[in-house]
């Protein structure tokens, strides 16, 4: 080190040290840095999905705060006098007029509004994909079941935030959306009518709903969401992140990069990339052009109406119900055409939410699981997930049934009837195919673990036979294929009182469903045995033997 730089460095570092010391004396921040500064985060592309969700939420918070300075949630009637000529003089609510002002008269307002809307769409999409990643890799297992449930709370809140925000401009499309919500709420037995009147402050649309949704959208829902999000992240720290199986990775360690500096650089940089991509979308692609829809009026509506994508599954469920499912009984109206879709939507939310507890009840596996499953190694779970995704996807497609019909020149009735059938048969077919594909992939993995990969080298044996030389995997590659959890179906045995309870029978049945088609991981003995066959076969075929030997040596 040169002597000229020495004193300079000491001075700067002494400033930093003094500042750090000042803060530490008042906060014990050094303990936090010691605890978390070198915390390890594993790397995998799929772990970014949750990050995308988190970062787009931050973007929404920032842009939403900007919008609150200009948006006015009043349903008072006014005549629009802003810059957008086609709507000049049109009577509309102050909420709609202020949204138009943000879009046309505030510099950068349209950009921020579009960032907010695109960000919201990305937030919910990323949340959904993150949940699928967690489901298909089985990382909801002990000790993460509760965090999975919290995640569902976040998902529901995200959709609630989306819907309340979507309704705030008070335009024609969102007004129709609210009308549909009102119709749904009124269909609830006993309390529906009253809930609707309390929500809207009277008859639809009233003059209260936008203000109330605004309170929900910017105060209540975000507060709960931030609290749950914080809890969600605390659990991620407590549990430490899961990792995929790989050499050196065990259930008792976590391999990856430390927070300071590498993870901070990558994740911090990734935040800016997510933010930047959302801004690019907002710069080049319009979203929710309310000026094309006009103010809310209960009478007009345009063909091809659709909600934002994440509400599509609910709208689709409403569309697929066959006619006539409403009865009058006990002098009351029972709207099963509303109730059945509501139950279906509830099932889409609740069944996956309780799935970890169901799977645990079947396996009674009380170990902690920190190694993410490859989806193929849990064929039944993956099949169930595929069935759920298919059901959701059919409902989602149904929300565009009319557009599908016009685009592909089909009769709308045929589209609906096809989707009705697909909603019931699709999940079954998806389950069967997915499970079979998973088992096939496991068989392939087993084959590779036992016999190695085809090298492409053809060798002619002295007897005239041609064989292809297989290259054995090295220990590291093989480990990825053999290190998964294996389960066997439950054998029914009487309990201590000599009885077999109904619950045991159900559990045994379910465990057969889950684990009867079972491909056990390759063991050392399996490999030895398969090699044994090899040796026996190759003993008389020295050339082949030496070919493999040479191959191994080269490796």
């Amino acid at each position: 080190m040169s002597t000229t730089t020495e004193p300079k460095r000491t001075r700067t570092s002494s400033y930093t040290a003094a500042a750090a010391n000042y803060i530490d004396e008042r906060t014990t921040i050094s303990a936090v840095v010691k605890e978390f500064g070198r915390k390890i985060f594993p790397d995998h592309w799929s772990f970014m999905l949750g990050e995308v969700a988190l970062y787009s939420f931050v973007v929404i918070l920032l842009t939403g705060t900007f919008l609150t300075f200009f948006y006015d949630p009043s349903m008072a009637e006014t005549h629009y006098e802003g810059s957008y000529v086609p709507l000049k003089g049109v009577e509309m609510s102050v909420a709609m007029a202020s949204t138009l002002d943000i879009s046309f008269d505030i510099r950068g307002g349209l950009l921020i509004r579009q960032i907010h809307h695109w960000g919201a769409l990305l937030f919910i999409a990323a949340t959904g994909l993150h949940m699928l990643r967690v489901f298909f890799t089985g990382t909801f297992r002990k000790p993460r079941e509760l965090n999975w449930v919290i995640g569902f709370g976040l998902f529901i809140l995200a959709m609630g935030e989306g819907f309340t925000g979507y309704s705030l401009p008070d335009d024609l499309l969102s007004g129709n959306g609210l009308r549909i919500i009102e119709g749904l709420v009124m269909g609830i037995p006993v309390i529906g009518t009253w809930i609707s009147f309390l929500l809207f402050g009277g008859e639809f649309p009233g003059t209260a709903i936008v203000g109330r949704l605004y309170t929900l959208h910017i105060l209540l829902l975000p507060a709960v969401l931030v609290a749950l999000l914080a809890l969600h992240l605390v659990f991620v720290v407590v549990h430490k992140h899961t990792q995929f199986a790989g050499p050196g990775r065990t259930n008792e360690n976590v391999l990856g990069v430390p927070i300071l500096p590498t993870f901070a650089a990558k994740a911090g940089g990734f935040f800016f990339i997510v933010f930047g991509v959302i801004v690019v979308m907002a710069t080049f692609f319009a979203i929710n052009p309310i000026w094309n829809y006009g103010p809310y009026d209960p009478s007009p509506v345009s063909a091809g109406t659709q909600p934002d994508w994440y509400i599509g599954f609910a709208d689709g469920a409403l569309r697929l119900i066959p006619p006539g499912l409403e009865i009058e009984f006990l002098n009351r109206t029972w709207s099963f055409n509303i109730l059945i879709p509501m139950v279906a939507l509830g099932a889409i939310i609740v069944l996956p939410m309780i799935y970890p507890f169901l799977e645990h009840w079947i396996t009674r596996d009380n170990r902690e699981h920190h190694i993410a499953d490859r989806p193929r190694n849990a064929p039944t779970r993956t099949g169930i997930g595929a069935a759920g995704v298919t059901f959701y996807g059919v409902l989602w497609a149904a929300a565009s049934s009319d557009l599908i019909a016009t685009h592909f020149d089909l009769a709308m009735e045929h589209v609906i009837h096809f989707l009705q059938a697909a909603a019931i048969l699709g999940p079954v077919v998806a389950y069967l195919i997915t499970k079979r594909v998973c088992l096939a992939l496991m068989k392939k993995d087993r084959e590779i673990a036992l016999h190695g990969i085809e090298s492409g080298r053809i060798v002619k044996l002295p007897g005239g036979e041609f064989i292809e030389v297989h290259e054995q995997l090295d220990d590291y590659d093989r480990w990825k294929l053999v290190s998964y959890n294996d389960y066997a179906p439950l054998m029914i045995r009487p309990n201590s009182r000599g009885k077999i309870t109904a619950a045991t029978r159900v559990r045994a049945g379910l465990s057969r469903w889950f684990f009867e088609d079972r491909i056990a991981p390759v063991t050392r003995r399996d490999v030895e045995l398969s090699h044994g066959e090899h040796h026996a076969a190759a003993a008389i075929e020295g050339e082949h033997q030496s070919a493999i030997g040479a191959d191994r040596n080269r490796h």
Partner: protein
Amino acid sequence: MADDHGARDVVSAGQSARSVAVPVSASQETSVSPGLGVIAPDRFENPGIPPHQPRVTDLDPKKEKRAERTVYTLFYLSLAGSVFAIAAYFGFPIEENNIASTRMNNLMIGIGISLALLAIGIAAVHWGKALMPEEEMIDHRHPVIGSPATRARAVEIFDQANKESGLGRRSLLRNSLIGALVAFPLPAIVLFRDLYPGNQEDPVSALSHTMWKEGVRLTRDPSGTPIRASEVTLGSAFHVIPEGLDESEHYLEEKAKAAVLLMRLRPDELNEIEERKSWSYDGIVAYSKICTHVGCPVALYEQITHHLLCPCHQSQFDVTNHCEVIFGPAARPLPQLPIAVDDEGYLIAQSDFTEPVGPSFWERASVNDN
């Protein structure tokens, strides 16, 4: 976190590559039941971390320099993007009544901010990937469950608190506390009752009538001009609101119930039931426009087939058969508005709808009885 081993446990993977070949059967695996899990006795052992492969930037100082240049160039580019965004804010202002200027403003500010953000992001990630150490490190996990000593102490604390407060022993104190705690949020819930103020009309009654009554003229939506029967030509359809809706104090609420569709068919095309024969006029029929499913406006009329289609959920109603449902999720026909013609030839309502319009609600069946 209570994990006070944290820092000490972190070791470079390279140093201990062999020592981490921990079999699956470590500590908790033996003490915790695997349930239906099968652990083969001769399973493969974890081979440990593979040897580290250095990157080009670790080996070639030139490549390292180049990565460094890329990173700082991107940071400067980001700086330029931010400056450009501010310049665009002033340089591309929104001019009054000029949509193109709004578009330009949006585009230019957006490009500036995009550049500022993406350049920072890509630079930081590149820095992390190319220049910061990428060799994986190991952190040890500990079972999430508290240590036996911690758990024992927690139980002890609860016991002691219980003893000191008498919560378990003094059952009257405990039960009255629970009662008080259950009751205290109830006023907060009751306070929300006036989200729909108590002095307002009963919901069921409000839903059961509309602005239509005997003699109210049918007028065009939204102009409000009355409609002569002679103007309704065969095959035409009118979007209708009641006369005087404009003056109504609750314009949107009344419109949401009173919107009507008026169509003229050939009288022989209408299959009218006996008691409703007098509700139409010379093939002109009026039906509520509010869908009986969830309340969207049934705005699409197919002239040839005389079907009405709701664009929201595709319920279809057959106008020739009193708007009965022929497809889609709706369950009930659209309510019919009985119409007639006044002395001046204008279409008028004979009365209000004879049943509540719009989506079903719980008490609806009881309204029908009255």
